[in-house]
């Protein structure tokens, strides 16, 4: 892979995520916003910032910023925080789906959006003790799935999200005292963006429904407190990727 592909989607997010983790060690409230802004740096590199948005994808920075504001206002743990999170999720899904829905609605699209909304609402507040591992693995799975069969751009954006969480995922298994704790607030923010990216891949890049649902399933342990719940994620991601590989066009491209 060329540096042009690796730099904005892997190297830069890992380094900036690590930096955010070090700088926010004593101010964990700012970890989530810092990570999302870091992701937006990768986003603007790969996609560019367009206002007003011409494509559904161009609305993602606005959704990310709304999520940051909602997260800061409600601090995730309160009922207000949860309500603000749900409001951003519903707004995000509707703004994402509107360009498709305005050409005509169908049961399949509406059903998929409803499933995504329920899964998104069910995942907050985050109770998982290893949320960075769940997020990074699922985002990595989405990156591979879309890059292999659909959209390289969405694959890169998901890879950037996965890379952000890698230092924190490592710290969840081998504690690193110099890093801020990746708590429920940043997990909620990044989880929301990951869910939006997943729905985007399903709606616009023809990610099949089966692997999409499996990747959604891989995110659900975020809501579960038991550390072992995180073990649902690897097989769900593995089955989704295997599904895609088994059904992939064998010709190289």
């Amino acid at each position, binding site marked *: 892979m060329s540096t*042009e592909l690796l730099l904005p989607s892997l190297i830069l997010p890992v380094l900036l995520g690590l930096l955010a983790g070090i700088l926010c060690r004593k101010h964990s409230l700012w970890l989530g916003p810092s990570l999302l802004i870091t992701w937006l740096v990768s986003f603007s590199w790969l996609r*560019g910032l367009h206002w007003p948005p*011409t*494509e*559904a*994808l161009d609305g993602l920075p606005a959704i990310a910023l709304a999520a940051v504001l909602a997260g800061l206002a409600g601090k995730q743990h309160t009922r207000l925080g949860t309500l603000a999170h749900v409001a951003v999720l519903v707004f995000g899904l509707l703004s994402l789906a509107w*360009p*498709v829905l305005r*050409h005509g609605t169908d049961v399949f699209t509406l059903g998929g959006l409803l499933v995504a909304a329920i899964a998104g609402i069910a995942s907050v507040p985050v109770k998982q003790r290893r949320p960075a591992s769940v997020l990074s693995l699922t985002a990595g799975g989405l990156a591979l799935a879309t890059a292999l*069969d*659909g*959209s*390289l*751009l*969405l694959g890169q954006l998901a890879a950037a999200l996965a890379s952000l969480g890698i230092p924190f995922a490592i710290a969840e298994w081998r504690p690193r005292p110099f890093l801020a704790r990746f708590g429920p607030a940043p997990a909620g923010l990044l989880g929301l963006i990951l869910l939006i990216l997943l729905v*985007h891949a399903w*709606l*616009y*890049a*023809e990610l099949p429904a089966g692997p999409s649902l499996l990747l959604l399933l891989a995110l659900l342990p975020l809501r579960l407190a038991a550390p072992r719940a995180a073990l649902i994620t690897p097989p769900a991601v593995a089955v989704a990727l295997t599904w895609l590989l088994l059904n*992939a*066009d064998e*010709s190289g*491209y």
Partner: protein
Amino acid sequence: MKPMNRILTTAILALATTQAQAAAEPGRYRIDPAHTSILFTVGHLNTSRLVGRFNRFEGEFVLQPGQGRIDIRIDTDSVDTNHKKRDKHLRSPDFFNARQFPQMHFVSHQVRFDQNGEPVAAEGSLSLHGQKRPVSLKISPVGAGKDPWGGYRAGYTATTTIKRSDFGMNYMLGGIGDEVVITLEVEGIKQ
């Protein structure tokens, strides 16, 4: 060559030339999708040119000096490069974003005709990927005449070159060329 043969050959050539120069009958023509091809050519890695096509479209044109008009709508999700995986990628937000922008549309503002009444160029606008830009078509007649079913048909080749970046399709400009040559081999049935 005997004098009689020479006369006959000259007469046939003269007739053929006259028929080729005859302009198609003025009127409104519906594009026949079964005998029309919409092709595009784009560079790949600065080493080769890839040819693709669109398989679903509809449109019409009006042959009438002063009132000429061309209107073509193409379904972007019908892109076909003879490679399923690449076609899926081309439909994605990286390129056409076919779910959000299901059609591209060319409509002329002005069609120029030669002295025989044949269209030679068209100025118009192309809506693609949510952007509308002016585009010029160079047109050359292929032929015209009655078909075996009592109808009347006219055929043209139209070409233009666009820059996909002008339409906001900026992804992978390094590997996939910016300039795209579009060729329309059109057969219209007079209405």
